[in-house]
């Protein structure tokens, strides 16, 4: 036996605590995102929004949670029980896992371990590829939910969501490449550090940023790309048959995915947890990070309040005939620009 197991045990403890903190934060974030969304949309539509439960309706998410928790779960006879049970769990786990590589601050010195503590679950040199891999799993939760429900509306919703997500996944993967080329790393922490030392990448990659934002909205199935759950045609899409806690899991997964893509947008294009020219302690980093995520969530809500839903053929056309060629052009243009820069054309 290894005589000195204490460091291993400490690391393990650290991993569990970090995991618990991330999940706790994401669930709280989810709860207050729903409140934030209702409040902002209400203001945009000249309504008051939630204001009964607690001050400014702040207790409404808790009330909603309790309601869903105590609701009876209806399992229709026709469903495939195993997959019906598994699908929301897949959605939720995938949504949480995608957040793992997002850095929320500079590595910090802590008393209980040698070396620095990562502020974020993990950081390695394939972080972005890991993220793409994990997010490509989100399709399974939704497509399987639609299939397992054995309900025509749910199945169409699930299939539509599947086709939509894979279509926009391509443009998303390609839109990030410009950033990777400039920084020369797939580690999100290194990308943030680069931006700290130079400029925010949104200035160098404006087209990449725009494509990323559009695909991020489509990947999270939010308005105006919320075809999978188009109420007027599909009742509630893939989660038509889901009730109570199982429905809540899909709901959570959707909002956690939104938080993740906002955080990713911040890390890739908007300087992550840093502000230009300012060196902050870890809680300052965290506050800046939160501020950027909230700003991103506001844009999500703003777009939802502004834009009408696309028709499905328009949506697919847009993904394949506009975003995909544009993102390829962006990659080539970035490569040519960088090559010119390296050979001193820009001085």
């Amino acid at each position, binding site marked *: 036996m290894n005589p000195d197991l204490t460091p291993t045990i400490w690391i393990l403890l650290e991993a569990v605590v970090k995991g618990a903190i991330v999940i706790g934060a994401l669930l709280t974030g989810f709860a207050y995102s729903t409140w934030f969304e209702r409040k902002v949309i209400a203001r945009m539509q000249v309504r008051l929004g939630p204001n009964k439960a607690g001050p400014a309706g702040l207790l409404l998410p808790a009330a909603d949670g309790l309601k869903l928790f105590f609701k009876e779960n209806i399992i229709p006879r026709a469903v*495939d029980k*195993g*997959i019906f049970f*598994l699908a929301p769990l897949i959605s939720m786990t995938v949504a949480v896992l995608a957040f793992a590589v997002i850095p929320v601050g500079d590595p910090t010195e802590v008393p209980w371990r040698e070396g620095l503590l990562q502020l974020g679950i993990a950081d*390695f*040199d*394939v972080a972005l*590829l*890991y993220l*793409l*891999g*994990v997010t*490509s*799993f989100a*399709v*399974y939760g939704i*497509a*399987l939910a639609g*299939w397992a429900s054995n309900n*025509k509306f749910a*199945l*169409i919703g699930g*299939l*539509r969501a*599947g*086709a939509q997500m*894979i279509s926009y996944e391509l443009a998303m993967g390609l839109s990030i490449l410009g950033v990777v080329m400039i920084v*020369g790393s*797939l580690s999100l922490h290194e990308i943030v550090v680069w931006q700290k030392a130079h400029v925010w990448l949104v200035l160098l990659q404006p087209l990449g940023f725009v494509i990323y934002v559009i695909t991020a909205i489509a990947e999270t199935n939010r308005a105006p790309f919320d075809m999978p759950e188009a109420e007027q045609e599909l009742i509630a899409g893939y989660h038509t048959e889901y009730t109570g806690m199982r429905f809540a899991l899909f709901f959570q997964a959707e909002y956690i995915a939104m938080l993740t893509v906002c955080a990713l947008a911040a890390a890739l294009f908007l300087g992550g947890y840093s502000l230009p020219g300012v060196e902050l302690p870890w809680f300052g980093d965290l506050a800046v990070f939160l501020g950027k995520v909230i700003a991103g969530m506001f844009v999500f809500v703003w777009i939802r309040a502004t834009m009408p839903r696309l028709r*499905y053929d328009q949506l697919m056309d847009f993904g394949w005939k506009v975003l995909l060629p544009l993102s390829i052009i962006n990659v080539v243009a970035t490569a040519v620009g960088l090559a010119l820069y390296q050979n001193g054309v820009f001085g």
Partner: protein
Amino acid sequence: MNPEMAFFYAVALLMIATAFGMVLARDMVHGVLFMVGNFVLTAVLYLLLNAPFIAAVQLIVYAGAIMVLFLFVVMLLGAQDLSLSEPAGGRRIIGVAAVLILGSLLTFVVKEGLPAGTAAGLAEERLPTLAAFGREGVEDPQSGAAFGSPQMVGEALYREPYHIVPFELVSLLLLVAMMGAVVIASFGKGGVAAAGPEQRPGEDSA
């Protein structure tokens, strides 16, 4: 047994279990799910081999793209149609024979090593240096990147012009595959848009 070996055996056992689950699943969609699980575990094995880039590719391409295609195909064909056809006795015998042959070949290769002189044998002769390099977690002196990282893969693939022909051939292969897909899908004279004469009444066309 050190922890790494224990972990490897746990993963390997799970992989065998998911493989059996896939083959024995009565329902095609369940089979697809087992296969996804199997592919994810394969990615874990690649991580154990210190090849994070290949692991990520395994996740993105196999588990995330090809299996989505499989899932769509299973849904497209209608799962219930396929569950009816039991494999015939002859096919079973062929299957068992194939497993035995492949198994004995693999056992031979693992025990004896690859024959010298063949392309695979040459690769193995060169491999030990690379493998030792990876196992000890040594940093690459030139680029500062670890073995198996995307930087290393990029350097190896694109620095020297040796790989240009196979690399461009890959794109031609992808092109041919894409054309094939389009041609196969556009049955009937009306092209893809005609959705096919086989469409039965009551079928969905959303």
